[in-house]
């Protein structure tokens, strides 16, 4: 049973992953003009041997389909090509930057769920009262604050009022994992601001709807306690729309990761991609875009499967 669900979910991912790979692949072909001049500078003659070399190294001399197939076969083998600037392997660069992003995203997701779902349940159960209104205002505020402004403000606040707190530490999970996690705590909280708010709003909406349904009446008539009704009977069915929305939430969360890593100087995927973009290192850009996209897809898969474990009905 579990196996078949896993298989079905994995099958659904295939078209999305394929589309993603095509889009990442085509990125390099969207560069206006000839990529060669972007890489080697405007003074290079487009028919010179150097230009030919660059084209050959990127497989640009072959038909588009062949290029894609060569590229995707490499990707499947774990070979994302070589950086145009530093000539190191793109896959190696990505692997060294992945841990920070993974830990940061996991922490932010954890915080958003831990804050968003209880807040949503609370707001729905206190509907129309002052705590509901306050929570709704807080969630709107959480969604209105741009991630980069929250990050900059946090740094400003700490440097003005608590200069002794060290915000910028080197992160080495191999050496001192705990120090890494504590350094990532503030960035993770900032990232969680808008996703926690979104989760709260979805939870509140879904709870309000579920609590009107008949099985809640039945549970009440049965004499179940209010907390049990709220959590066992209400929240369990209300979680489905929240999980459905988790795809978009995860995608937005990772958008924030790019910004937060840049502001806090965290050596993660977002920073890697931005620096690749500023140096016009297109193979590296391609690799990071594909990896981050795949990350979002995998997060969705994990959330989805967790939900199936929680609720065997679906």
């Amino acid at each position, binding site marked *: 049973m579990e196996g078949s669900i896993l298989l079905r979910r994995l099958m659904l991912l295939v*078209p*999305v992953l394929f*589309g*993603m790979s095509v*889009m990442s692949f085509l*990125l*390099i072909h*969207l*560069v*206006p003009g000839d990529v060669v001049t972007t890489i080697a500078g405007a003074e290079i003659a487009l028919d010179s041997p150097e230009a030919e070399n660059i084209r050959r190294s990127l497989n640009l001399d072959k038909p588009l389909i062949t290029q894609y197939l060569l590229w995707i076969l490499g990707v499947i083998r774990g070979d994302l090509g070589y950086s145009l600037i530093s000539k190191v392997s793109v896959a190696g660069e990505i692997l060294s930057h992945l841990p920070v992003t993974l830990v940061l995203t996991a922490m932010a997701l954890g915080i958003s769920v831990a804050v968003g779902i209880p807040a949503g349940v609370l707001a729905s159960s206190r*509907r*129309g009262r002052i705590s*509901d209104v306050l929570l*709704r205002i807080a969630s*709107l*505020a959480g*969604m*209105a*604050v*741009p*991630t*980069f*402004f929250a990050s*900059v*403000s946090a*740094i*400003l606040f700490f*440097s*003005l009022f608590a200069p002794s707190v060290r915000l910028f530490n080197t992160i080495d999970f191999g050496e001192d994992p705990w120090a890494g996690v504590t350094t990532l705590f503030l960035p993770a909280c900032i990232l969680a601001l808008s996703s926690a708010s979104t989760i709260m709003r979805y939870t*509140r*909406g879904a709870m*309000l*709807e579920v609590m009107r349904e008949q099985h809640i009446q039945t549970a009440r008539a049965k004499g179940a306690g209010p907390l049990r009704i709220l959590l066992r009977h209400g929240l369990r069915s209300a979680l489905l729309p929240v999980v459905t929305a988790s*795809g*978009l939430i995860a*995608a*937005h*969360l*990772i*958008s*924030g*990761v*790019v*910004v937060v890593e*840049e502001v806090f100087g965290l050596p993660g995927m977002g920073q890697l*991609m*931005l620096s690749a*973009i500023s140096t*016009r290192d*297109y193979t590296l*850009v391609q690799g990071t*875009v594909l990896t*981050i*996209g795949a990350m*979002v*897809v995998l997060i*969705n898969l994990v959330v989805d499967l967790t939900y199936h474990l929680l609720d065997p009905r679906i």
Partner: protein
Amino acid sequence: MSERSKTAWWPELFPRALIRAFLGQNILIRIGGVLLVALLALALGGPLVISHGPTDMVAMSLQPPSAANLLGTDLLGRDVLARTLDAARTSLIVAFCAMALSLLAGAAWGMIAGYNVGSVDLVLMRVLDVLQAFPPLLLAVALVAVLGTSTANLIFTMSVLFVPQFARIARSATLLLRRRQFVLAAQVLGVSPLRNLLTHVLPNISTPLIIESTSVITAALLTESALSFLGMGIQPPTPTWGGMIAESTSVMTRAPWLVLAPGSATILVVLAFLLLGDGLRDKFDPKVSG
């Protein structure tokens, strides 16, 4: 005949109920609307009151807020208030253009998908799945990086990002409508699909699309400011909120107003649209309402 149908469906694109809601009783709409009108008035009327332009160097560098410069001056001695208001205009125009473009494309995309159930629908929706699986900012950064940084590219990129949101709504609404008698009747009478979509489907799906456009505008505002913060949005010397914050982080402990003014402006504008959207949703979509 053509005369009549023109007058028949244009006014209904902005359904009367929606207009009444803007003027009416809903508290969220009222707060959001008032906030928005006030901010628009500031953004548009500001330059009439403030004598210096956003790029004029009017005073010493890093002056704290004073009577002459209400929000102080930045590193180059430019008036922060004038810059913040000018940025408001730019941001709103860019966000609005992006929203309008993706509304057009998304509505068409969704209506075509919803009207042609089957393989067309399947292909169109899978493309959206892929678009939505990418983190929006990531896609924007990558697209701007390859296309080059310009305001036109920025608008184009953002309009691509938000097509899925509109298209999904247009599709699900169209799916319901195409089984309705008046749409089927028109079909039987030989009305062309295009005309049928424009005269019978579009007016009936415009309310959810207009409501969605408030949330797309907030997303566009936030994306634009993040891109400008990363240096990939609107380029200097045109002031933007994101750009103003990015260029002041090195001196912000000495001059916090450089960061707080544009930041608060962003929050207020986004909040106004969020409130408006929430109010409209409360009113027209009882399913999610509070």
